[in-house]
């Protein structure tokens, strides 16, 4: 599903240059649930942004579902994001003047689906994350865990190939974190490929594979025995 070869990325910080990714190689197969771990500054978020076509690598190859991602213009990049990828952010990033339902329906709007149909689809996904009763609530009327579930429903709405989650539990307490992880595990069980960036070992333990980054290089990549979040809830 994802093939990455010798990925390099550096940022200019004033006059000096910060080399963030120093040659990353790894592949992700369909249906995997991967945690990308590392301390802050290890380059894990940068990697996720490149995988999410939100950022572009300086060099190296990135192939997503057999499509090479290179030198895309913004219009094509946005199209790929819409078709291939679903995002879940640490700070939820819901549009605060839109209801939960409209937030979930947003990717479908950019796919050109008509209002009635997109509301139906969005409602289905809200039901899936257990929030159909909150469909007309605005984000600020929802708790953190509920917001993140709306965000997950939104990420799933466009039926993406890969779900990318950047510290999805970073702003949540432990109990809520496990509830969200339970949801994510359930989605993965249905066959969706999911990447999670996290620095929390207990969250990483709930994935099937752990990739550890340090100073822009992968220092560890191992399959782990998945801990089911339902055991804690």
């Amino acid at each position, binding site marked *: 599903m994802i093939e990455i070869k010798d990925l390099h990325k550096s940022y200019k910080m004033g006059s000096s240059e910060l080399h963030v990714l120093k040659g990353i190689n790894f592949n992700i197969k369909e249906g995997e649930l991967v945690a990308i771990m590392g301390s802050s500054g290890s380059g894990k978020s940068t990697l996720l942004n490149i995988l999410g076509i939100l*950022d572009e690598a300086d060099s190296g190859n990135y192939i997503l579902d057999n499509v090479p991602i290179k030198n895309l213009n913004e219009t094509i990049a*946005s199209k790929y*994001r*819409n078709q291939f990828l679903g995002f879940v*952010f*640490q700070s939820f*990033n819901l549009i605060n*003047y839109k209801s939960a339902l409209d937030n979930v329906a947003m990717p479908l709007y*950019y796919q050109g689906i008509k209002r009635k149909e997109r509301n139906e689809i969005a409602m289905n996904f809200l039901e899936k994350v257990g929030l159909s009763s909150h469909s007309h609530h605005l984000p600020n009327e929802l708790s953190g865990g509920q917001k993140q579930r709306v965000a997950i429903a*939104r990420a799933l709405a466009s039926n993406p190939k890969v779900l990318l989650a950047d510290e999805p539990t970073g702003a949540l307490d432990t109990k809520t974190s496990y509830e969200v992880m339970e949801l994510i595990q359930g989605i993965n069980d249905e066959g969706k490929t999911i990447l999670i960036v996290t620095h929390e070992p207990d969250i990483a333990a709930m994935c099937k594979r752990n990739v550890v980054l340090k100073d822009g290089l992968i220092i560890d990549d191992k399959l782990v025995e998945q801990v089911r979040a339902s055991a804690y809830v």
Partner: protein
Amino acid sequence: MFNVERWQEIFEAIAKNKLRTFLTGISVASGIFILVILLGVGKGLQNGISKQFERDADGIIEVWSGTTTKEYKGLNPGRQIQFRNSDYNISVQKFGDQLEKKASTYNFWNGLISYGKESGNYQYRGVYPDYIVIENGTIIKGRFINNSDLINNEKVAVIGLKIKQDLFKDKEALGEQIAINNINFKIVGVFTDPAGEREETRAYLPITTTQRAFGGGDKISNLFYILHKKDTYEEALAESTKFSKELNQLLKSKNVVAPDDESAISVHNSVENAKQFYDLNLYIRLFFWWVGICTIIAGVVGVSNIMLIIVKERTKEIGIRKALGASPLSIIGMILHESIFITSISGFVGLLASLSLLELVGPQVKSEYFLNPEVDFSVAITTLVLLVLAGAIAGFFPAYRAAKIKPIVALRDE
């Protein structure tokens, strides 16, 4: 533009961001409002000042007749040319569209005018209603000769202030009967003339009555015309020169006079004297154009400012939308669509408000230097379109930049 889905999206954004919409609307509406009011006041001042000065400004075209000095078509020189009603009528018929005021007169240079025991020798003239404007006179009591006087051959007279003082002293003259060469006329008005006593020793009568009562038949003495006002002195001069020439030709050919015989029929054109007025008018208009342009610039800057702030405020939303698959073009389209919609609607509201204010308050203002503060509707609409366009252009650049921002930058937590 006609994408229903996008309209829905925009209406939702507008409905959910009432404060933002309201503030944008208010600033655009007030911009338009102030601009239109300013233009209206400018126009009012211009009208008022024009009114004050236009009397000196009218280019009067005057036709005199005399005796021929040249032989023409077998007619000997020394022939007296006498204008008749038909000369006046044919000229009005031919040039009617160009004429602001028109009159012919039938003049008597000496007549015995008496009231009771008082009497004196004065001029009297048969005239048309427009003649008061041509003479630059002002009615101080009663009225001037009007059309119904002409039609009914009324025996009415409007006398100069000097005649009134001579014959009536301090007595009321209106409604009294005077005798002009033993024919009775009722006084309906008294006038003054800035030219002074010489002109105030005249009595004006309806031309039809004069021709009948004093055996004139259809004779007339002089012809007078004032052309419509033009925007610039040059235009006015060109038009009146052309008119004079054509009128000259018309009257000479009708009366069988040699085209170059200026003593038989001569056309005098006083538009040359009107240059000062046109200059003043030009300066006033230039001034208010300048004020208007400055106001528009201020409005454009204001609208641009708001657009910048709106785009800045929506940077994060734009980032989210882009992450979800919005193309840069759809982002620009959304922002411009919304801004054009809001500025058009609120601009129109401001336009209506200011126009109705001008309409309501304008006529209430009583000042010699302020008259009819109107605004040309097409000018107002043009201004509105200009502002909306400026808002769109001003919104385009920040929207374009926002659409270019990488979503990761837009989404970065502060």
